């Protein structure tokens, strides 16, 4: 079964190879299902707009040093508060004469950093807590879910504020604080999914092969929870970005010279009436990226939702 039919090099051949109903190897099967998911995703225009924006953001973050016309930290006090479309400063300058466009470009790195870190920590923690609570049940379930409830009882930003206040201001602590406040909903989802999965015949079937709880949770329950978590995380990204921006705005996230978008709004706030663009431009950036994640999340839901995937 190792002989993978070498696909024809032309485009049509690849397409057929990927669309087959009868894959010939493990790799082939995986590639085929990924490709078909991608086709579904691609057929949704709004989602593709979201993907486009995010790819753009990614490239911008990656090539920030080449794209930024100025040093984001260089202050030119003579050129303070320049308006939009000024020569050399496309989006104007801020109160210390720093180029807003360059700061925005470098700021995308921080935004992505926060988003990725939170998106890694919170769902994984939630998945862990939720599946263990749901699968083991009994007192483990009770204890874990009470803890979850306690976290859920506070508004997210308030709780994040409390954590940052305790841990000290700074970007790492902001990430930690946001992740700490973001996991409970994921735990809830994972637990609910686990509850409906654990009684199913296919779980009984692996139990009859002598599989232990660890294997069942990681190999059989996680793959089914992960898709709904991914959808939920993408939809939550907007909230995470806003929370990060909110902490930055309150001066508890990224610290001053850093071009974090929330912090930029906070600085621009003092000049909002006369020099509106200083706060508006980073605000628009936050809005666009949040929207992009939301669009992507909607599309991913169509692809990953297990309710439509399994049947027929």
């Amino acid at each position: 079964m190792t002989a993978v039919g070498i696909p024809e090099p032309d485009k049509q051949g690849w397409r057929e190879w990927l669309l087959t109903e009868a894959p010939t190897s493990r790799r082939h099967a995986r590639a085929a299902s990924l490709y078909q998911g991608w086709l579904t995703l691609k057929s949704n225009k709004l989602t593709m707009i979201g993907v486009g924006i995010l790819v753009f953001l990614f490239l911008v973050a990656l090539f920030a040093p080449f794209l930024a016309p100025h040093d984001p930290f260089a202050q030119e006090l003579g050129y303070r508060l320049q308006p939009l479309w000024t020569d050399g400063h496309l989006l104007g300058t801020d109160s210390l004469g720093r180029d807003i466009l360059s700061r925005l470009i470098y700021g995308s790195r921080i935004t992505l950093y926060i988003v990725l870190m939170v998106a890694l920590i919170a769902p994984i923690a939630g998945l862990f807590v939720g599946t263990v609570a749901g699968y083991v049940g009994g007192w483990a379930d009770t204890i874990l879910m009470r803890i979850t409830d306690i976290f859920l009882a506070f508004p997210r930003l308030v709780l994040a504020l409390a954590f940052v206040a305790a841990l000290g201001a700074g970007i790492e602590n902001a990430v930690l604080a946001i992740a700490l406040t973001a996991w409970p909903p994921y735990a809830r989802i994972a637990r609910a999914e686990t509850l409906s999965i654990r009684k199913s015949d296919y779980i009984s079937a692996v139990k009859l092969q002598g599989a232990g709880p660890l294997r069942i949770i990681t190999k059989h329950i996680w793959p089914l929870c992960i898709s709904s978590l991914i959808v939920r995380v993408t939809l939550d990204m907007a909230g995470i970005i806003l929370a990060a921006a909110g902490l930055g705005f309150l001066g508890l996230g990224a610290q001053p010279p850093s071009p974090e978008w929330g912090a930029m709004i906070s600085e621009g706030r003092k000049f909002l009436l006369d020099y509106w663009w200083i706060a508006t431009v980073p605000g628009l950036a936050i809005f666009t990226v949040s929207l992009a994640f939301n669009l992507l999340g909607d599309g991913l839901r169509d692809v990953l939702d297990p309710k439509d995937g399994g049947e027929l």
Partner: protein
Amino acid sequence: MNILDVENLWVKFPTRSGMFDAVRGISFSLGKERLGIVGESGSGKSMTGRAILRLIRKPGIVTADHIRLEGNDIMAMSERQMRDVRGQRISMVMQDPKFSLNPVMTVGDQIMEAYALHANASKAETKRKAMEMLEAVSIRDPERVFRAYPHEMSGGMGQRIMIAMMLIPGPEILIADEPTSALDVSVQTQVLGIIDRLVQERGMGLIFISHDLSLVTSFCDRVLIMYAGRIVEICQADKLHEAQHPYTRGLLNSLPRLDEPSKRLEVLKRDPAWREADSVSGSVSARA
């Protein structure tokens, strides 16, 4: 008088390798009778049932010259009008009961919800009605079942709960997709008795989808035999064993029989010509 008239019904699915026709231009009518649909897996039985309720999932496409429900064309109805048709006038018992029940809601709540959607009744009245239905489908210990979750039910109990839910609104047409496949013969007889009574007394029309040929023979009035999305033969149910089509014969021969034991069962051998033959019309002209 026909309650339902289906003319030239197609169900298509656009797939990545072209259009897949699940139902290919079938016509039939339903009076106040028990109409059986049999056929092998994948022959399009369930899709026919779902198409009548316009419940085909998204990429699927339904076309038909008409699907008339007492003179009104279902194909021309708005989604809002359809909602009044579904459940209220035409009910469907879906094939997979465990899949159709909500796993995290108690059985009782689900039945009560089904009833409350169609009737303005007090909570106590709804509950009484729900218990009554559970008893009607011969569930032992309905009090306990009422409080239980679907995973605590045996295969056949789940099926009967679905039937109870679908019969509560008192529909004009019941489409039952393999409603008794997990029931033992005696409970099956009782459940069919309830459905039968509704047909006899209230003039309900029944479309009974099943792969159990001997059951269809004894329970239905007329039978459509489907193959690859078409109707290959129509029989009076009690004459099914005299059926002519080799496909029907093949299905009949593959049944194990209690009275004639055999070492091996016959396996159906398919003929590609069956697929191409024209669909037989199952319409009975309205005997007004």
